[in-house]
């Protein structure tokens, strides 16, 4: 199956080559970090998690969002998703691999990671999260390989795969729930300690993930003969609309609770996000851009005529994705540490090295998506070689 990814035109190989260069550059920067220590990042004693852990959190959401195509297709037999379900599952695999890589690059002593399994600690949500994510990866790899293989043979997937697919549905919900618990169980961090964090994570995942999937399908339509037709795209657009509405609704609930109750230890974090705290306005412009993008996206998605137009839908998906990336990939994690438990504000901003490593990890994900999409579409004869 994978041999299909080894044949392609010059554009394909150009893209693959580009990704390898980006990964290689990221690796070089990682070696610098490995030698020097995490001090090479912008992290410090007060803001101890930053860009890496935020990307991890964001990508757990992208991984979980595969359930938005898997559930309608396999549970409700929604045939229109037949062609794109496997694309969602492959995206999930790539996302989990990126999650693992982001955890790896965030560790002070990465070679000791096996200690998590040598000294299993059920008290720690990190233990459960590694089980949830590892399990989800295994499930999706098994499902994808079998589905692609049976497509190649032109037979329906084996019967035993169905229960595994059904298991992957609650499992997808669990990975993002456990990831939210990682944060929401900490009494030390009032910003995260909110029961709505897991629902919020899921809502942002189920809007950002499918938005990305729509954009990937548009890219495939442009560069290959792949065309799933209008219906699945429109249905995905509807899913994005509902999930994004819920996401914005949840954020507004958080803002209401913080501002109306006025409890400083809750409020200060939101001040830091939207107006700045003690003169620190690092995230303020970003958060306003995120908010404006959210408004634009919902406006476009709410108007059926706009949503039904694929060009407008594509633009709306870009705004959804960027809005959620800023909210989750920047705001969510950093703000938990600002102010710190002593009420002090410490500045954090990713360094160049940190950013290059992050881009390198994303390139790994892009490479996985490219190779497996290529293989899948070649098997279906939807790529001109």
């Amino acid at each position: 199956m994978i041999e299909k990814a080894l044949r392609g035109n010059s554009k394909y190989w150009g893209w693959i080559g580009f990704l390898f260069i980006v990964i290689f550059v990221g690796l070089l920067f990682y070696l610098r970090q490995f030698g020097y220590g995490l001090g090479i990042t912008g992290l410090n004693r007060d803001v101890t998690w930053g860009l890496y852990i935020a990307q991890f959190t964001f990508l757990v959401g992208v991984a979980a969002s595969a359930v938005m195509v898997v559930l309608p297709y396999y549970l409700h037999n929604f045939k229109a998703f037949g062609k794109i379900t496997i694309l969602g599952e492959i995206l999930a695999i790539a996302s989990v691999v990126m999650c693992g890589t982001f955890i790896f690059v965030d560790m002070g002593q990465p070679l000791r990671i096996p200690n998590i399994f040598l000294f299993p600690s059920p008290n720690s949500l990190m233990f459960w999260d590694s089980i949830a994510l590892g399990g989800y990866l295994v499930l999706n790899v098994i499902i994808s390989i079998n589905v692609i293989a049976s497509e190649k043979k032109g037979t329906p997937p084996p019967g035993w795969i169905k229960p595994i697919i059904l298991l992957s549905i609650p499992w997808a919900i669990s990975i993002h729930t456990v990831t939210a618990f990682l944060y929401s169980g900490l009494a030390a961090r009032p910003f995260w300690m909110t029961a709505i964090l897991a629902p919020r994570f899921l809502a942002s995942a189920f809007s950002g993930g499918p938005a990305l999937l729509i954009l990937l399908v548009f890219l495939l339509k442009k560069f290959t003969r792949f065309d799933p037709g209008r219906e699945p795209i429109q249905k995905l657009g509807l899913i994005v609309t509902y999930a994004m509405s819920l996401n914005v609704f949840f954020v507004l609930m958080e803002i209401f609770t913080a501002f109306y109750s006025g409890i400083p230890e809750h409020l200060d974090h939101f001040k830091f996000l939207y107006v700045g705290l003690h003169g620190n306005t690092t995230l303020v412009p970003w958060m306003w851009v995120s908010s404006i993008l959210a408004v634009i996206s919902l406006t476009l998605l709410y108007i059926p005529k706009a949503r039904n137009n694929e060009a407008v839908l594509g633009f709306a998906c870009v705004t959804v994705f960027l809005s959620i990336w800023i909210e989750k990939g920047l705001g969510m994690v950093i703000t938990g540490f600002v102010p710190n438990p002593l009420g002090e504000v410490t500045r954090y901003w990713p360094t160049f090295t940190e950013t290059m490593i992050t881009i390198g990890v994303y390139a790994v994900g892009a490479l996985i998506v490219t190779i497996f999409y290529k293989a899948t579409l070649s098997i279906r004869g939807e790529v001109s070689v």
Partner: protein
Amino acid sequence: MTIDRRKFIKTAGLASLAGLVGKNVLGQDVSDVIEPGSFDRLSGLQSPLQARRWAMAVDIGKCEKQHDCTKCIDACHLVHNVPKFDNPKDEIKWIWKEPFEHAFHEQENEFQKTDLIHSTPLLFCNHCDIPPCVSVCPTRATWKREDGIVMMDWHRCIGCRYCMAGCPYGSRSFNWRDPRPFIEDQQKDFPTRMRGVVEKCTFCDERLAVGLLPACVEACDVGALVFGDLEDPESNVRKLLNNNFSIRRKPGLGTQPEVYYIIS
């Protein structure tokens, strides 16, 4: 954990010693040797200080009278090979002074007693009875001993910094880079750390094991730091707390800190 690494190494070491010579160097039976504390007696050191619940009391008033005194901080950071960085980004600290409004962030009171509001209480690890850092650690590299001390294993720590996110007191530091070049006067009898692990105050477990009080307590000339067993009604710390008004940091979180601040 019923047996920690230290106990295991002691027991294993002594067992192999006993196995070689039949009897130990002092001619005692093996059964007399392998019991808690026996190693320290054997090695000619003082018997360890033991407690059911170690606690520290900080007399803010006494401490504040010694304006700008940093003897306890210096002593601690010297004996534990804590590096000194010029920038706050890489900073590592086991004890430090913090303005009252930060140390007792939850005690918002603009018209608090003037000397208190301008005080800079000493902060260290609170050695909580219910330590959130221990709950979140994915490798049990940090754990609570039976006597209440929250310990750190620098060889097991993977540097995920979850404990730093979980600690409501900002008591933990991370080695963002190799700390060794920044240790001014390296002590040979205490380990240095490598980059990528978390560290913090351990109530001088290594000194207690040889019958010494924590370095900070010993360094304080004015008795502003009192250390002892809270379960012992005759202990100094217990008497002090019984007779004075004291507060703890963020009691509302239910972590039950074992560091008490006396307001006189």
